[in-house]
């Protein structure tokens, strides 16, 4: 392919085009060109050129989670979304806000916080953009009370692989007109379309909050503490468990509400957690993935039914996996250190996936070094994979959007 004419063609669609460098590689695969559209229309024009010339495209925001999933099977163009970084609308009285895809979540939060509102999604990976949020659906402790990206996304604008611009949902929270395109896009790793705008439901920032934590000596005790809080009526905003491979674990609870209400509920929580419970400052380590300080680690997402949390903790520790996460929703995260032999990782994943006990969830390798990605099936069994292939075939029959990045090679 003649690079100059490729660049010229793309530049006609989107003025901000440059040759790629090694720093633009997506999980080890280097593109030819980086294009930074400023608008949905420029993104659409870019994708029309990509369609005409059969170019493979990966969308990149801040690039904080580019190594998640599998490397692209081919790659020509990285679409850098960071010029689309405007807050489109914040209707405080309606508790909604919409933003362009490249706006960093932190800036979004800062803008809406002026009216004491927030998008109730924890920034688990610093720097994450709105588009990255939708594409990968990261979640933290607060998902217990308010759900995850899928539950808060109410409207979306996307550009299809053929360059067609389409919207789903809208800017009202209650809306059942048409299919829920937003949910389909959430967590799709950029394999169905490029998201250029998203609108979310907001929540008021509570007047008061309190974190309480208690040690857990055994998996059983951790499970019991989790169950005690979960089945109480204190309505925690978060219910976290930590279960490192070496050393005692902990169960941590977040209470959010009015000042007086939080005081009373914190007392109830302390009673549920037992004598050694104590109030702590906001635990920064729980508001990030457990692997954040372990570059090269194998990152895992472990989901399970609520009553199986202690079982998962036991299997994870035996397999050498450090675990923390939202025990109250059954969404846990874990990691194996960077120097772990890929064969050992594979065995650990296999053990965690073993179905002798039906844990009602899945074990996904979120990220890991190339040798691990080669040795392990990242997603394990995926229910409905055949239908997912058909959805991909409909949206991106030429397999140009993030090819090979997602489940089943989608």
């Amino acid at each position, binding site marked *: 392919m003649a690079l100059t004419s490729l660049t010229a063609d793309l530049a006609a669609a989107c003025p901000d085009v440059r040759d790629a460098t090694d720093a633009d590689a997506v999980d080890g695969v280097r593109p030819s060109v980086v294009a930074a559209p400023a608008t949905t229309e420029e993104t659409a024009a870019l994708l029309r050129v990509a369609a005409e010339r059969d170019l493979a495209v990966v969308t990149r925001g801040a690039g904080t989670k580019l190594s998640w999933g599998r490397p692209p099977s081919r790659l020509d163009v990285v679409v850098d979304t960071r010029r689309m970084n405007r807050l489109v609308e914040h209707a405080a009285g309606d508790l909604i806000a919409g933003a362009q895809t490249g706006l960093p979540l932190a800036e979004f939060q800062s803008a809406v916080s002026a009216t*004491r509102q927030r998008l109730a999604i924890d920034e688990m990976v610093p720097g994450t953009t709105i588009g990255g949020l939708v594409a990968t659906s990261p979640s933290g402790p607060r998902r217990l009370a308010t759900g995850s990206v899928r*539950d808060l996304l109410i409207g979306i604008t996307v550009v299809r692989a053929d360059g067609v611009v*389409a919207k789903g949902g809208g800017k*009202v929270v209650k809306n059942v007109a048409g299919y829920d395109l937003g949910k*389909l896009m959430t967590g*799709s790793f950029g394999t169905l379309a490029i998201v250029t705008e998203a609108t979310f439901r907001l929540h008021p920032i509570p007047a008061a909050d309190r974190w309480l934590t208690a040690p857990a000596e055994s998996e059983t005790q951790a499970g019991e503490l989790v169950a005690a809080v979960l089945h109480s*009526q204190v309505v925690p905003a978060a219910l976290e468990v930590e279960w490192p491979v070496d050393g005692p674990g902990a169960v941590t609870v977040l209470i959010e509400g009015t000042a007086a209400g939080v005081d*009373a509920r914190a007392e109830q929580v302390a009673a549920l957690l037992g004598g050694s419970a104590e109030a702590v400052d906001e635990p920064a380590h729980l508001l990030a993935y457990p692997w954040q300080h372990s570059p090269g680690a194998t990152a895992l997402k472990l989901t399970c039914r609520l009553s199986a949390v202690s079982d998962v903790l036991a299997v994870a520790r035996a397999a050498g996996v450090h675990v923390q996460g939202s025990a109250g929703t059954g969404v846990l995260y874990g990691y194996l250190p960077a120097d772990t032999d890929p064969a050992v990782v594979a065995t650990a994943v296999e053990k965690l996936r073993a179905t002798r006990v039906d844990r009602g969830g899945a074990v996904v390798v979120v990220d890991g070094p190339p040798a691990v990605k080669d040795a392990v099936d990242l*997603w394990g069994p995926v229910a409905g994979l055949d239908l997912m292939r058909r959805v991909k075939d409909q949206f991106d029959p030429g397999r140009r959007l993030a090819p090979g990045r997602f489940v089943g090679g989608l």
Partner: protein
Amino acid sequence: MTASTESTTPTRGDVTAVLARLRRSLPADALITDPARLRTYECDGLAYYRVTPALVVLARSADDIRTAVAACAAEQVPFVARGSGTGLSGGALPHADGVLIVMSQMREIRELSPADQRAVVDPGVINLQVTKAAQPHGYYFAPDPSSQQVCSIGGNVAENSGGAHCLKYGFTTNHVLAVDVITPTGEQVALGTRAPDAPGYDLVGAFVGSEGTLGITTAVTVRLVRAPEDVRTLLAGFRSTDDAGAATSAIIAAGIVPAAIEMMDALAIEAAEAAVHCNYPAGAGAVLVVELDGPAAEVEHEFAEVERLCQEAGAFELRIAADDEERALIWKGRKSAFAAVGRISPNYIVQDGVIPRTALPEVLGDIARLSAESGVRVANVFHAGDGNLHPLVLFDDAVPGQGERAEEVSGAILDLCITHGGSITGEHGVGADKAKHMPRMFSADDLDTMQLIRCAFDPDGISNPGKVFPTPRLCGEVPGKRSGAHPLVEAGLAEAY
């Protein structure tokens, strides 16, 4: 496009061939062919549309559903799923040359696990049945459409049903983790897991709210929610809907998320009084029902705040439910409102539209103007907290022209919703009734994109055809390059609006 182009001109199959297949595999009493009995299925909760199905299958198991759908797929005959038939958009309206597959015999709660906060239920299970089963364990199923005593979970899944309390707790889609589905091609697939975030595309999210156009669910895994420690309900009388709207805005602005905020205007109150003698404050131009729930320590504080904000906004009377009985009485007036307008008008249209909550005063003013100009009375009942309007457009079919005028007013209200950036349906669905309105809310490209999902699930367009989308997308076609009558229209599988 990789989709097959052989299927671009489907020929409509014959339901007698489906019947012949099903006679071999289903018991005789599962098949209804008698015209008189078929007619009992001619409509759902929107009785304005009536179509007698060619064949009814009373499914008793997932296998029955699979058998019925597979037969329809083999013969290219359309099918429609029906739960309790309470839908208000004609979503379960039968197809005249198709099969109606009825779920009402599948009413078993397969599993109830308070420890996992989950229940696994048959599609025909009644919404309230789940809550009643979970209640002894301190749990309930949160989505509570007004029809919850009769509507089915399968129907809730199809319509993504809401209810008065979805302001705080969300809709059916926020409470469904997994669905077993028979796809329109007759395959059985399990989507989702008991835990959230099943790997892959969120096909559960796409399926919930697809109004029966992506297949039929045979088992639903739902979230159970812990019953709140405290519930407090308040009825506030205001001189005008503007005052009640101001109170609503003030409550939201104070950072309070009530379980529900419901509003009724004077005409709706009049109807409710006539029907159920709910004894709402005399002379009220509007009433608000505000319910708070949650930990007692929070509810107590926020409830005092709500009382204060209502008074500041001009409430002339506040009534606080002292117990469950008084709470039930407050809700009785609100919940009976739809049926109650039958007392003050021979006929009425129940509209369902959404506006941004802050546009409430303006839109209510516009509706009043529409009503005055047309001479058509409109009673307003709505979920004020989330801007979901249910205007009841009153008319007398015996008076020539009134029905048409009421239709026009009803349609104009939807236009108002769209103009203000809202939606043509908040919870009743698009169904047969509003497919024609979809192009006013969505562009041709938006609708085309949604139908890519349809093509993945239902390439032949046999699952509840004619609903949701005004024009079917021919799977595999190049959009915008079409001439002559649409092949699906020609084949009788769909009608273009």
